[in-house]
């Protein structure tokens, strides 16, 4: 059931070693509205995969299928297959909480809990059974360091996270996601609410983090996708129109609609 004209423009590699995520023929409905239409995608380890496309084309929806955050939306139904390291994440025995521990998520609007910086970071590890104070201290420090915000926050660990600037809050949220030691980091337009300097810091951070994590980033900003990603997927009206190496997608798009979007002729 794979439509050849779609497959044409979608890079899918051989099956020798499974990719981090393998998505096959994925459909998603909100009630009767179909928000994703037979999406196929391979997401590789230690790469940054960028998802672009006009507003409402299903980028966030697709991202949320990767850590099953759609489960909490009433009336949302998914069919098709999403494999993480070769295992179907929608299979019966899958523990959703463990899946979300492995696949972290950073949201468009920074959403720190109304608690101290320390408690924000410690919440995740505590959720997964870390109790010892010294161990938590270590995780808090290493997570903040990984998110390149330790120096800014080390003197205000006990202060409310809501008092931080937007850019700091977003990096705190990245640190919070890293604290549960995930393999994958999903980021939904993480810089759309931030100023250029904070945006730069987060882009730099993403580049640094891809050495250890698989990163999928939704972005509204094509320059950002071109700057930081290895692969780019272009969505339109719930379809993955084109997916491949970022350079090819931007320099020589195979689909007319991709070209129109990239050159700013619509969207």
């Amino acid at each position, binding site marked *: 059931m794979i439509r050849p004209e779609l497959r044409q423009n979608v890079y899918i590699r051989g099956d020798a070693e499974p990719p981090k995520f393998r998505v096959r023929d994925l459909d998603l409905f909100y009630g009767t509205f179909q928000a994703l239409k037979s999406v196929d995608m391979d997401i590789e380890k230690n790469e940054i995969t960028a998802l672009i496309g006009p507003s409402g084309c299903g980028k966030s929806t697709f991202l949320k299928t990767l*850590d099953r*955050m759609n489960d*909490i939306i*009433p009336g949302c139904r998914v069919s098709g297959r999403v494999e993480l390291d070769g295992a179907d994440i929608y299979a019966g025995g899958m523990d959703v*909480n*463990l*899946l*979300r*521990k492995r696949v*972290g*998520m950073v*949201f468009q*609007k920074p*959403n*720190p*809990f*109304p*608690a*101290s910086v320390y408690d924000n970071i410690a*919440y*995740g590890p505590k*959720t*997964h059974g870390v109790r010892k104070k010294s161990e938590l201290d270590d995780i808090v420090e290493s997570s903040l360091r990984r998110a390149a915000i330790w120096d800014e926050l080390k003197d205000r660990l006990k202060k*409310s996270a809501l008092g931080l600037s937007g850019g700091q809050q977003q990096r705190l*949220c990245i640190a*919070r*996601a890293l604290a*549960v030691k995930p393999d994958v980091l999903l980021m939904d337009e993480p810089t759309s609410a931030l100023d250029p300097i904070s945006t730069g810091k987060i882009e730099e951070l993403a580049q640094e983090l891809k050495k250890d994590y698989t990163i999928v980033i939704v972005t509204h900003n094509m320059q950002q996708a071109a700057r930081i990603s290895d692969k780019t997927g272009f969505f339109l009206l719930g379809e993955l129109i084109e997916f491949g190496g970022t350079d090819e997608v931007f320099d020589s798009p195979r689909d007319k609609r991709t070209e129109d979007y990239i050159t700013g002729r619509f969207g």
Partner: protein
Amino acid sequence: MKSAAALLKQKFAPLPSCDLKGRPFVNKPSLRKKLAEYKRHPFSLVMMVLVMLSALVTAAIVLWIVIHVIMQGAPNLKASLFELEYDSENLSLMPAFFNTLIIAGMSLLIAVPVGVAAAIFLTEYTSSANKFVAVVRMAAETLAGIPSIVYGIFGMILFVEMLFKGFSLIAGILTMAIMILPLVMRTTEEALRAVPDSFREGSFALGAGKLRTVFRVVLPSAMPGIIAGVILALGRVVGETAALIYTSGTVKAVPDSLFGSGETLAIHMYTLSSEGLHVDEAWATAIVLILLVLVINGAAEFISNKFRKRY
């Protein structure tokens, strides 16, 4: 270490009226300047005066009542009013004071957990389109608006006549718990709904389950609102007379057990003044009642602030 006096002085020191170069601040217009601006918008001026007057009238009425009660009651605040046992000589308010604490405390102990749990179920475990939830919410809204005497009659029939065969603290406690339950539930529901979904999402995305998300993220964020609801409920119990006269009765003593009858401060005031003989003592009792309410509100405010600071 600065002394407390120095700290206070620093906190309440008048702000300078001009900047370091001696120039007046231009963004703080004088009243005359403000009035001149309003000249171009006479309707705005009228509205401003109206809202100011309303605030003033409200404050004045409260102040007037409090001052009146104090003036009438203070001269009658005799030590004999605070003797442990009531008799017709000392007219002591202490039994009523303790009964008030017992009835208020125990009814909250029942109504708050149940009301908060019900609100959690309605907001966190059901979808907002659910018919059942809509019905429960409407029922709670209606129940919260029913006059307390209706609860009193209900409590009298169910608890006094059928269950405990006589007036008793427990009948009063249960009646009060039922009376404030819808109020606690509604205010808690409001508080929970005010917690942004992004907090819940953040928690789920870290792999936390529903229970942990609700108790570790949602409830703490909603705590100030929940506490405000509990204070309202407490105020209703402490001020209740009608429903309690029919359930816990008017006995002027602390009973041996919850199954004995005993009156609260509000009822004590009512009986003192309705006989027409002890109006002075009723005023003195009113002072104690007002103080009690003030202390409770202060304590709740303190707890609420603790939460706000933490989060």
